[in-house]
C-alpha cells in the first residue's frame, strides 16, 4: 500500500511537471526582449514604467498582446524623444492570471525601481494589486482590468470601460435604438467579465423598453455545446440574443444557431472582437452581428491603420482590443506626465500625486475613443462605439 501511494504520488507529481511544460509551449512566439531601454539613456533621466499581466497559462493571449503593444508604444515614444525629454524604460512581469503571483510581480517591479504601473491586464489580479499600489501611493493605469473594484482607490485609472459600464451601455443602446423587444442572454457564469456585464445588463434592462425573456449560463467546463441555451431562447421567442462573452464561444453559438435554423440578431461587447479571425469559422454567419467595442482592427481611420501595420510588422499578428487599450494607456501616461511635468528624480508618491491631478485635466484622442477624459474615480469618459459586421468586415453604426 505504501509503495503504491509513493508510486502514484510520484506519477502525479511528474504529470504536474509535464503540464507546466506544455503551458510554456504555447508562448513560443514571445521573442521580444522585455527590456526596451534606449541605448542613450543614463540612469538619471529614465522613467521606469512597469507592466503586469499573464504571459504564461490560460490567459496568456491577453498578457502577450499587452506586453507587445506596450513595448511598441514605448519604442515609438523613445524614438520621438521620450516623455519630457526622459527616455522610458519598460519592464513586464508575468502574473499567470493569479492574484497572489500578481502581487509578487508587483513587488519584484518595485525592487527594480518602477515609478508608474501600467497594469494589471486581468481584473482579479488587478483588484489585489490596487491594494498594494494604494499603500505605496503608486500611480496605476490599467488597460483592461474592468471589474469595479480593480480601480477602487484614487491612484488607479483605467482605459477600458468597466464591466457594469458595458452592461449598462449595451442595455441602453438596445433600448434607445429599439433594436429588439425580446432579448435572450447567454453568458459565462464562471467568468468575472461575463457575469459582471450580465448583472448590470439585467438591471438596466428593467428601465428599458425591452424584456429579457431568458438568461442561460454556461461555465468553463461546458463551453462547447450551446444547443440547450439556444433552444430556450428560441422557445421564448427572443428576437435578439445578447452575448457578453468572448469570441471563441460566440463563434460556436453562431454556428449552432445557424444549423438549428434560428436567426435572431446577435449583440455583443468588446469580447466579441476577434470573431472574424476565428479559424474555420464561416464569416457569413457573423453577418449582422452587432458589437459594442472600443476598437476594431480593420477600421479605416489613420491612427488605427498606422497602429495595426506597425504591430503586424513587429509581431506578425493582428492586434486585439487589449493591445489597443495598452497602446493608448502608454500614450495617456505620456500625456498626463507631460501635463504634470513629471521628472525622473521625483519620488513615486510625488509622481502619483501629480499624475492623479493631471489625469483629470487631460483629454486624449486614441485608438479606443476620441476625446477621452477621466474623472477622479478613475473611470474613462468616452462614447461607446457600436459596429456591425457586414460582409466579413466591421462597419461603424
Amino acid at each position, binding site marked *: *500500500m505504501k509503495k*503504491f501511494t509513493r508510486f*502514484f504520488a510520484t506519477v*502525479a507529481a511528474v504529470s504536474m511537471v509535464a503540464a507546466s511544460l506544455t503551458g510554456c509551449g504555447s508562448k513560443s512566439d514571445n521573442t521580444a526582449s522585455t527590456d526596451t531601454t534606449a541605448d542613450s539613456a543614463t540612469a538619471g533621466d529614465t522613467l521606469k514604467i512597469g507592466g503586469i499581466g499573464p504571459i504564461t497559462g490560460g490567459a496568456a493571449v491577453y498578457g502577450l498582446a499587452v506586453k507587445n503593444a506596450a513595448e511598441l508604444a514605448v519604442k515609438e515614444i523613445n524614438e520621438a524623444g521620450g516623455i519630457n525629454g526622459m527616455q522610458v524604460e519598460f519592464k513586464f512581469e508575468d502574473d499567470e492570471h493569479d492574484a497572489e503571483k500578481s502581487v509578487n510581480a508587483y513587488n519584484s517591479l518595485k525592487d527594480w525601481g518602477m515609478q508608474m504601473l501600467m497594469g494589471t491586464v486581468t481584473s482579479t489580479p488587478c483588484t489585489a494589486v490596487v491594494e498594494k499600489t494604494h499603500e505605496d501611493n503608486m500611480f496605476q493605469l490599467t488597460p483592461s482590468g474592468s471589474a469595479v473594484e480593480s480601480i477602487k482607490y484614487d491612484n488607479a485609472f483605467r482605459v477600458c470601460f468597466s464591466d457594469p459600464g458595458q452592461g449598462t451601455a449595451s442595455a441602453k443602446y438596445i433600448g434607445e435604438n429599439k433594436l429588439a423587444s425580446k432579448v435572450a442572454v447567454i453568458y459565462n457564469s464562471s467568468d*468575472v467579465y461575463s*457575469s459582471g456585464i450580465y448583472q448590470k445588463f439585467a438591471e438596466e434592462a428593467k428601465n428599458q423598453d425591452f424584456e429579457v425573456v431568458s438568461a442561460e449560463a454556461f*461555465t468553463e467546463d461546458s463551453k462547447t455545446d450551446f444547443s440547450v441555451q439556444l433552444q430556450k431562447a428560441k422557445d421564448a421567442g427572443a428576437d435578439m440574443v445578447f452575448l457578453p462573452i468572448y469570441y471563441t464561444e460566440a463563434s460556436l453559438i453562431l454556428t449552432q444557431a445557424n444549423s438549428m435554423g434560428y436567426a435572431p440578431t446577435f449583440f455583443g461587447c468588446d469580447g466579441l472582437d476577434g470573431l472574424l479571425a476565428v479559424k474555420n469559422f464561416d464569416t457569413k454567419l457573423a453577418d449582422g452581428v452587432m458589437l459594442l467595442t472600443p476598437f476594431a482592427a480593420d477600421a479605416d481611420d489613420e491612427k488605427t491603420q498606422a497602429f495595426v501595420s506597425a504591430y503586424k510588422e513587429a509581431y506578425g499578428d493582428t492586434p486585439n482590443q487589449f493591445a489597443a487599450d495598452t497602446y493608448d494607456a502608454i500614450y495617456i501616461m505620456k500625456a498626463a506626465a507631460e501635463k504634470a511635468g513629471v521628472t525622473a528624480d521625483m519620488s513615486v508618491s510625488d509622481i502619483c500625486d501629480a499624475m492623479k491631478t493631471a489625469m483629470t485635466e487631460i483629454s486624449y484622442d486614441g485608438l479606443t475613443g476620441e476625446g477621452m477624459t477621466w474623472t477622479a474615480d478613475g473611470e474613462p469618459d468616452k462614447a461607446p462605439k457600436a459596429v456591425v459586421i457586414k460582409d466579413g468586415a466591421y462597419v461603424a453604426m
Partner: protein
Amino acid sequence: MKKLKLNKTTKNNLITYGIVILAYIIVEAMLAGGQISSLMKGLLVPLCVYVILAVSLNLVVGILGELSLGHAGFMCVGAFSSAFFSKCTAGMMPDGLRFFLALLIGAAIAALFGLIIGIPVLRLKGDYLAIVTLAFGEIIKNLINVFFIGKDANGFHFSMKDAMSLNMDGGDVIINGPQGITGTPNDSTFTIGVILVLITLVIVLHLINSRDGRAIMSIRDNRIAAESVGINITKYKLMAFIISAALAGVAGVLYAHNLATLTALPKNFGYNQSIMILVFVVLGGIGSTRGSMIAAVVLTLLPELLRGLNDYRMLIYAIVLIVMMLLNWSPKALEMRERYSPKRLLAKRKEAKEAK
C-alpha cells in the same frame, strides 16, 4: 549532563522547530535592517501558507499513507468561510479578535468538511480514494462559484442563480459567485504566519509521536495487522484526515486575509493547487515533516527568484522539479547518495584510522 540527553525523535523535532524560529529571527533582523527586497517581503506570508499546507498534507499522505488529491478544497473552504466572517463583522470588533475568530471558524468549517467527506471516502483505499478526493476538491470549488450571498438591513440573502435573484434592498453582496469575495481585511502578517506554522508543527509532530500517531502509522504499514490487534481503523483514519483538513483550513484563512480579492479559480483552489501541495510533500520526502516544510519554501521561492530569466522562468522551474525528483527518488541516485554520504565517509575514515 545527563539531563541534556534527549531521545532521537525529540531531538529531531527540536531541530524542526529550531529551523522555523531561526528563519523567523533572521528574516526579522533583515526586515529591521531594511535589507530585504519588496518581493521577498510580499512572499513571507504565502511561504507560511504553503508550509502549513505541505505539513498538513504530509499527515495524510506520509503518516496515514493515503493519497488525497483534494487538499486545495479544504483550503478553499477555510478561505471562503473566514473571509465571509471577516467581511460580515468588519468594524464590529477589534481586528485582532476578529482575525483570531476567523482562524477558528476557518479551521472548524474545514474540519467539518473533512468529516463529511472523510466518512464516505475513507472506506476506499489507494487509487479509488485518490480519485474521489480529487472529485470532492473540484466539487467544493465549483459550489463556491455558484454561491451568491448578500447582506442588507433585512438580514442575509442567498441564491445559487445570480446576484439579481438575491432581491437585495441596498446592502452588500458578500460572495458574488465567480467574482468571489473582494475587500477582505488585510490581517495576515509574517509573525502570525510563523506562529501558525509553529502551532501546526506542534500539533502534527505531537500526533505522530503519540499513541494515536503510532496507531495511524500502523494502519499505513499493515492494515490487516493493525485491525487484528484491535485498532479502530475508521476512527484513526478520520482523525488524521480531519486534523489535516482543519490545518489546511487555517492555511486558507491566512491566504484569504493576505490578498484583497478571493476567487475560486482552478489556479488557486483547483486540482493544480492540490497537486502542487502534493509535489511539496513528495519532493520533501513522503513522511518527513521537516522535508515537506523545506520543499514548500524552496518550491515557492524558486519561480519568484527565477523572474530574472524572463521567458525561460517556468521552463527552468519545471526542469529543476524533474531533477529534484530524480535525485530524491531514483534508485541509482539513492545508491549514489548512500555511497557518498558524509556520514559514511566519516565512518570509513574512522575505520581506516582504527585499522592503522
